[in-house]
């Protein structure tokens, strides 16, 4: 019983850390303009729209976070093997991983923006100086949360995978969940705030991203502030649910009916999310209605 209560406590803590990680990851990727919406940041100068948005698509978010979390976890694991205190080891490992992220961010911004020189896009040194540190700070939070939850899974819950491998797996999953949930909100709702609400961006408008703020030119810090409120929070909830429910069903039900308990609970959870998804889909169709008259289809 004590073991189960202990497991539930660790599961809750891991879920909370995952929620923080998801939120920080999405906000970091939006401030740095990483992921699919960055295609528009890269495209805009080619269409004649010069901007002051950061531009650092180092890689897709999943492999990027896979690298940074595996690096943080690997370094923390090495420090712990040198008998360092786990808290200090994790912090130091994550600081070093965030520094690597900063190097990637800097070279990506300079390289990508310099490649747009023929379209008149300048490299803004003040943007580089003010944005890079903010993305590094958010990356540190995300990496720290992931490495800590991996340490809990490995050390307290006894998962067989070593810490660096857990960092790689959950880093990739973090990037996948964060980019899937957060990208549309940044890509459509923020970059194309000048387009109609409640509709996708017409393909003909590609590249015409919003470049001006309430006062002066818009920069990526404004984007992070805006997207964090819904996109960042939703990404946090998404990754938090994934980590929490995956561990929860294992801790509580893996010994029920020789392992079938966890499987049945997992299938029930999938069915619940299926019903919720269908409800959301139908709710949107009923409340927003069609854009055009329905056509008779065979």
């Amino acid at each position, binding site marked *: 019983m004590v073991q189960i209560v202990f497991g539930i406590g660790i599961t809750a803590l891991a879920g909370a850390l995952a929620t923080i990680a998801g939120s920080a990851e999405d906000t970091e990727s939006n401030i740095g303009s990483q992921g699919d919406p960055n295609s528009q940041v890269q495209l805009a100068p080619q269409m004649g729209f010069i901007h002051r948005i950061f531009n650092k698509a180092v890689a897709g978010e999943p492999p990027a976070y896979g690298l940074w979390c595996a690096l943080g976890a690997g370094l923390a694991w090495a420090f712990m093997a040198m008998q360092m205190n786990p808290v200090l080891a994790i912090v130091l490992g994550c600081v070093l991983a965030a520094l690597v992220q900063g190097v990637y961010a800097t070279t990506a911004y300079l390289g990508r923006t310099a490649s747009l020189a023929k379209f008149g896009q300048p490299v803004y040194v003040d943007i580089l100086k003010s944005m890079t540190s903010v993305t590094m700070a958010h990356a540190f939070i995300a990496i720290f949360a992931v490495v800590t939850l991996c340490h809990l899974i490995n050390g307290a819950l006894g998962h067989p995978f070593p810490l660096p491998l857990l960092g790689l797996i959950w880093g990739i999953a973090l*990037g996948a969940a964060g980019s899937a949930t957060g990208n549309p909100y940044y890509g459509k709702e923020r970059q194309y705030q000048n387009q109609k609400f409640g509709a996708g961006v017409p393909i003909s408008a590609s590249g015409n991203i919003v470049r001006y703020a309430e006062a002066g030119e818009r920069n990526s810090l404004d984007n992070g502030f805006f997207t964090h409120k819904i996109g960042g929070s939703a990404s946090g909830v998404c990754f938090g649910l994934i980590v929490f*429910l995956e561990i929860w069903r294992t801790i509580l039900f893996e010994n029920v009916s020789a392992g079938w308990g966890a499987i049945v609970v997992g299938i029930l*959870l999938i069915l619940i999310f299926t019903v919720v998804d269908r409800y959301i889909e139908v709710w*949107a169709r009923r409340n927003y209605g069609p854009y055009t008259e329905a056509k008779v289809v065979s």
Partner: protein
Amino acid sequence: MSAVAAKPQAGGAMNPTAMVVGVIMLLIILALCWYVSPGLGLMALIGIIIGGVLIGFGTHFVPVGGAPAAMGQAPGIATGVAMLAAGAGLAGLFGGAWAAGQGWVIATITGGVGGGLMMAITCMMVNFIYVFGMGIPSASGKVAKDPITGDTQAEFKSQGTEGHGLPFVSFVGGVTGGFLGGAGGTLIYLQLLSLYETKLPTLMGVPAAQVMPIAVAAAGIFAVGLFLVNAVLTAYNITGTIEGPHDPKFKRWPRAIVASAVASALCGFVAILIVAI
């Protein structure tokens, strides 16, 4: 023949010669494995090939729209197909590895359910953000009606786009893809773990308990690597984006099966050689 002079071919066209060459390569690798490590090694390689094929086939189900989906210009999840499939499959591998002690059937299904659960949550949150964050309903660009629910799609596509969000059939495709990916990744892990657990103590001359961390880590990292190989192969096959099982690109799966089988066999053979030579 130059690229300019080449006849344009549909992306989904099958090349029978390439398929036959692929099958022959597969048989050669299997024969080599039988020669180097008959019994356990060959069984492990067959398991790895089945796992790789499950991953390659499963990735075809995952609805990914890439960059256009991030602007609500196309349906699907706004990220890379290989990356999303890897995220789901590795989440499944995490659960499957945890259940390894309960037998390979339980562990493989547990891994599959873990991948399916990850995709169910992600797909639900994608629709949540489209509907409640951006006020956009789901609409497919590839079919007039959702094959499962029968909902009409065309009138829910906003002007100048190919659709947006995740129609129900795409949600089901995502969960199916996550399940197959998670099960395939776990199967690969279990096969390699079983091989390493048996061979490493003799090879290194140490007790079995002492090699367990090495066996688990090596099997785990090979499983992750094989997952990425198969997911990327499929990403090429569907040219980066797919709506799900209703997308015409889905019909390209046979050639991905052959490619995944060959790639998994080659990578698996290398993983087996570590302990076989």
